[in-house]
């Protein structure tokens, strides 16, 4: 069975995607910073699904290490899921360059760095799937989270360009824009139930989108409507809103 690579495997969505593909018999490569936690996930998957699971240290921010990271992966995974992200503290980011840079480094620079390496390999192999988990926050800049939002916007644009480039090589790129997800990122924050997806729902949506070769998905389709409305509000009105 083919193997898949999960970048950011200790995130709730990363775990859910892993679980979904593992339950369909795929072998898994888990990558992330928390090795101890990854090893716990590894034994769990091996016991539950009797598949092959490998664990690798991966730090999105430390882009110098990305080439070495890729070289270790033998044989190379057929599908790559870029799930890591850093929401950060927006208010702090407005004042603190370290925080704002970190948000940009993880969500944009780190993601682009690793996926570019992987994309080149897939292009040579003339097959592969890249799934990037971006965010609806990237659809329009809002005062409450534009650092995170702009990094995700960049990431979304990157994925769209990558899809365009790799199409002729038979490599597919899927952009995922979940709205609210019920994860530790927002635990304790109140979000509208109908608009909040569980990590499991996100994983299912991705699995189905992979099968159907979709390009861009919103996990809960109503988000597409919301983001459409938000994006068509004229700027002279939008700038007055408190969003």
């Amino acid at each position, binding site marked *: 069975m083919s193997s898949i690579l999960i970048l950011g495997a200790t995130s*709730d969505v990363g775990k859910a995607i892993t679980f979904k593909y593992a339950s369909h018999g795929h072998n898994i490569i888990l990558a992330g910073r928390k090795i101890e*936690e990854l090893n*716990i*996930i590894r*034994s*769990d998957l091996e*016991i*539950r699904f009797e598949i092959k699971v490998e664990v690798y240290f991966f730090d999105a921010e430390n882009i110098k290490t990305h080439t070495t990271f890729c070289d270790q992966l033998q044989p190379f995974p057929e599908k790559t899921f870029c799930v890591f992200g850093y929401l950060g503290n927006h208010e702090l980011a407005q004042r603190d360059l370290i925080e704002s840079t970190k948000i940009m480094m993880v969500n944009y620079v780190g993601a682009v760095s690793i996926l570019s390496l992987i994309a080149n390999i897939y292009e040579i192999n003339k097959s592969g799937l890249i799934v990037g988990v971006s965010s609806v926050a990237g659809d329009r800049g809002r005062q409450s989270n534009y650092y995170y939002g702009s990094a995700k916007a960049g990431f979304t644009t990157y994925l769209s360009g990558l899809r365009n480039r790799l199409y002729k090589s038979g490599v597919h790129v899927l952009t995922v824009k979940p709205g609210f997800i019920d994860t*530790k990122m927002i*635990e*304790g*924050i*109140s979000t509208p139930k109908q608009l909040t997806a569980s990590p499991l729902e996100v994983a299912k949506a991705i699995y189905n989108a992979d099968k159907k070769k979709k390009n861009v998905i919103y996990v809960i389709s109503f988000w597409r409507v919301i983001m459409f409305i938000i994006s068509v509000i004229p700027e002279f009105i939008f700038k007055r809103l408190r969003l």
Partner: protein
Amino acid sequence: MMSEILANWGNYPKSEAKLLSFNSFKSASELIENWDHFIPRGNGRCYGDSALADKIVSTLKYDKFISFDQLNGNISCQAGVLLCDIIDVVMPKGWFLPVTPGTKFITVGGAVAADIHGKNHHKEGSFSRHIIEVEILCDDNQVRICSKSVETDLFEATCGGMGLTGIILKVKFQLKKIESAYVVQKKIKVRNLEEAMSMFGQYGDATYSMAWIDCLKGGKAFGRSIVLVGEHANVDQLPIKKRETPYKFNERLRLSIPFNLPSLVLNKLSVKAFNTLYYNKTLSNYSESIISYDEFFYPLDSIQNWNRMYGAKGFLQYQFVLPLDNSYKGLVDILGRIRKRGSGSFLAVLKLFGDQNDLISFPMKGYTLALDFPVSKGVFKFLDELDKVVLNYGGRIYLAKDARMNKEMFWKSYPHLDRFMSIIKKYNPDKQFSSIQSERLGLT
């Protein structure tokens, strides 16, 4: 932080609670550091208020398998793993749960905290008998590993202790060898309580036994029952075409009750009709069949949310045990009172327990009966009266089902509470772990 309205399986009581979860040891430890007076909660399948409090810590995200020794059949997992997931993993390798309650949708942490029992209690005891070790995070934020031979006081107070010693993190226990996913079930229709009880004697060697009992019949048919007895099927007992893949069976159709039914659906008449139908569905007085483990152990799991049958107000499950010597007299007395009130339940389950005399676990040698009562006017007073009867016969009530027992009843009926309290005080001195139930019963 947001509060939500939570209830356990009985939908009574409902309580506003703040709910947090953890998915690593570190986050569990941070919760203890930063949060006071909460109760750990698994899948919320206890019936009453054991897993309710103003603050609740869910173990459901702490749900990883740690190890599984396929050769010797021992398994170790984090507390939030559900029994249904354990079955899925171990059954294809020829193993099964050593003890299982009537639902597989409980966590292994909950199984320890309630020290659950099943249809094999008379032969194989409760869940705690099969535990190899439990890892628990106590009030002082120290992890302790306890078992029948190490930190025994903590182990004793954790098995059946309803989460009051700390957050159960990991459980390692011994599985049971089986040859197939099937059970050979014998169904015996008996005319009254006396016959039912004699069947438990007659089938004392059977691995699994229990009876459905009709609480509303009087006269000669008082306590008419259907006794179910079971053994795991060996491969050679299976039909030939199933012998190749003995651990495979067809999943049942799942039904669901999507919303709370109006409470008047279940009244004296409809319950009577149901019981009569159920009793008469079994045509012959004796029948034998081979059914899947799912059908045998978890008949109600096929109806999702069956608890909604009792309406939005919820229901109380009343499960008591009486010492063997008093069992017959006591059951006649109690069933008589229920019949007179005409508020019998849909499902009344009778079972003979084997010997057990643990610190806080529910089972003791004797008969146990479990009944459902829709929450209604007068039911609390009635159950208070039943408590007194149970107490007079030397019995007690199962904490995992309880939502209403008063402190006095509890302290008079559980014999080792002084020792239990002293252990709770040792490991949970600041009432870090505390539920609505533990406060009601004067434990925290």
